[in-house]
């Protein structure tokens, strides 16, 4: 169960020149939960993280971690935040241990205590045996783990990760999320940004969807991404051969008005009001002689979530499936 709120953003506004980068963002992240920030490029994910990390001052609104407001106590605030920037943000020329010793000293750590912590965080990210390797020689996944270790050194309650899996292969991604899961279970509050909907769906306890600087939807991913009962069932496929026009017309006539059938080159799209109608339509297409190399239902798509949020906003109802 998530614990008390660690990070709280209230009505945060940030302007980059004339443009509003964040337009009244409110968000809370509790200890023991992983919250994903999801949104298209330029939606404000990195800006939200920068504000939460204290490297960007909002024009208005408040930011606090464990009740400590950055404006009131900048140093105390910084000690409660562990930031993993999008770039690895490490010195490639130095060893992993040297990097960690340096970043630890920035937080006032030193001596035996710091060395003990370095050993511990390296063990935590499973890099104890690479402590004396230069960071420049490590793989992308290992660099990401060293970066995470640097953020953990001063034992902050809040971890912020900016696109942590952007440059990782699926294996490294799974490893990183296993690690984040353990940190979550240890009571850390984790806020991460991602482009990957499947990642947010699988790995995050809650998701906040940002669009043009606003939180347009938030809640548990299962609720947020569940297809609407009234939604249409869709299937995309890839034809082995281009369909002759007469055959395309014949199929469309036999499908009737309840099923959409669109062909673009060798790509086909079938949409129906229900899965049953969709299955019937697919059987009819195959029976007509079209051969599909591949077909499947589309993954939950970010634009669908955004569209739904926009619909909800138009109807005057917040698209929220849980706490903010």
């Amino acid at each position, binding site marked *: 169960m998530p614990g008390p709120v660690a990070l709280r953003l209230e009505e945060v506004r940030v302007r*980059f020149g004339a443009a509003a980068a964040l337009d009244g963002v409110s968000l809370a992240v509790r200890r023991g939960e992983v919250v994903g920030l999801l949104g298209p490029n330029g939606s404000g994910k990195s800006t939200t993280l920068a504000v939460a990390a204290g*490297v*960007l*001052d909002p024009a208005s609104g408040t930011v606090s971690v464990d009740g400590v407001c950055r404006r009131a106590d900048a*140093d105390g605030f910084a000690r409660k935040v562990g*930031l993993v920037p*999008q770039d690895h*943000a490490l010195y490639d020329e130095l060893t992993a241990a040297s990097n960690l010793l340096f970043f630890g000293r*920035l937080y006032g750590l030193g001596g035996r205590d710091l060395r003990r912590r370095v050993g511990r965080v390296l063990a935590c990210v499973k890099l104890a045996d690479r402590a004396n390797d230069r960071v420049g020689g490590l793989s992308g996944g290992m660099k990401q783990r060293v970066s995470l270790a640097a953020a953990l050194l001063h034992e902050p309650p809040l971890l912020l990760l900016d696109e942590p899996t952007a440059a990782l292969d699926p294996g490294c991604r799974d490893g990183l999320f296993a690690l984040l899961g353990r940190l979550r279970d240890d009571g850390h509050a984790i806020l991460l940004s991602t482009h990957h909907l499947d990642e947010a769906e699988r790995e995050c306890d809650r998701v906040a969807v940002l669009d043009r600087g606003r939180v347009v939807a938030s809640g548990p991913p299962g609720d947020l991404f569940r297809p609407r009962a009234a939604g249409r069932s869709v299937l995309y496929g890839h034809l082995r051969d281009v369909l002759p026009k007469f055959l395309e017309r014949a199929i469309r006539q036999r499908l009737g008005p309840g099923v959409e059938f669109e062909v673009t080159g060798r790509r086909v799209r079938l949409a129906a009001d229900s899965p049953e109608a969709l299955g019937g339509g697919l059987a009819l297409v195959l029976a007509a002689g079209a051969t599909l190399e591949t077909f499947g239902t589309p993954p939950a798509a970010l634009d669908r979530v955004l569209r739904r949020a926009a619909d909800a906003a138009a109807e005057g109802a917040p698209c929220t499936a849980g706490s903010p």
Partner: protein
Amino acid sequence: MYRRLALILALAGKDWRLFWADRRAAALGFAVPVVLASAFGLLLHRPPGDPARLPLAVAADADGPFTRAVVADLLASPRLDAKLVPAAEATACVADRDPGVAVVLPKGFERLPAGGDRPSVALLHHPSCGAERQWAEGAFTEVVMKRLARERLPTFLAADALTPPFEVAAAPVAAGGGSPAAFNAYTHSFNGMTLQYLLFWGMESGLMLLRERRRGVWTRVRAAPVPLGAVLLGKALATAGIALLQVGVTFAFGWAAFGVAVTGSAVGFALLAVAACGLAAATGLLVAAIGGTEARARSVCVLAILGVSMVGGLWMPAFLLPAWVRGAALALPTTWAMRGLEAVTWEGRGLRAALPGVAAVWGFTALFLALAAARLASAEARRRRGET
């Protein structure tokens, strides 16, 4: 074969595109050599009617119409920038390199060309002014021979006309009681090149800060509870410390291999070395503060460092430069640092001679630090407000 050529062309095309990716840096790549060449040309160019004139002090122990005529010829010579000084002050002028060479006409000079013993003309010169001494000797001989030919041709021809009827006795003069023998060209070179390299190291240090920004390390540092002042001081301390090590290693090698030695005040040398290292650190921060991109900062810095090195006398004797450049050079820290180092190395002078250089270099260091800190603090505040 074709495939390999295509590959090479593709790789070359990539570098070509990378070069043009930062258009301002690319433009600087063309502008810097043009500006350097033009500036150096401006500094060294002498119009045909304005040949380089050697600064020379003229003193006379003798008196008489011939001597006065020679003095007047020397003062009017287009090859010399001569000034008349009392004979008693000639040595002091040369010791202060104001100017670095003096000619003293001896008693008996009025009787030229005299038979028997030839009068000995003293040519006093600063130990670092060997080239100027030779120049002065040639110009002086030319002036005297012309005057002799004009006024005393019959007597002159009766004498041995193939030999000047006087001797030139060159005498090096060192300031502050130092030994003139302590000078060697390596000392000048080690002083000048060490100072120049310190500035280049400062530039590299500043570029490192720009790289840290690009890599995102700067973001991580800014997120930590560390004030900007501490970050800058840490940077300056490391830069200055490494610079001091470079000074130590360079002069140790110079001493072991070429006899470069601190013959004057060791304390003065140490103070100057520390001040110059502080200047390198301040230069680095200034580069980081106003640098823009790394490529642009590098181009501008190379231009500036080469300029202040040359004008500051780190490369070649200052007399080769026009008078206005020599005057303007006083506004450069390199000039003062070089003067101080020369004073305590081969000139063998005491702490007092080093202090003006120490004070001037620290002054420039403080100015650079203040400018860099103000600019970086302002940039940081703008970044925090999301204005950059």
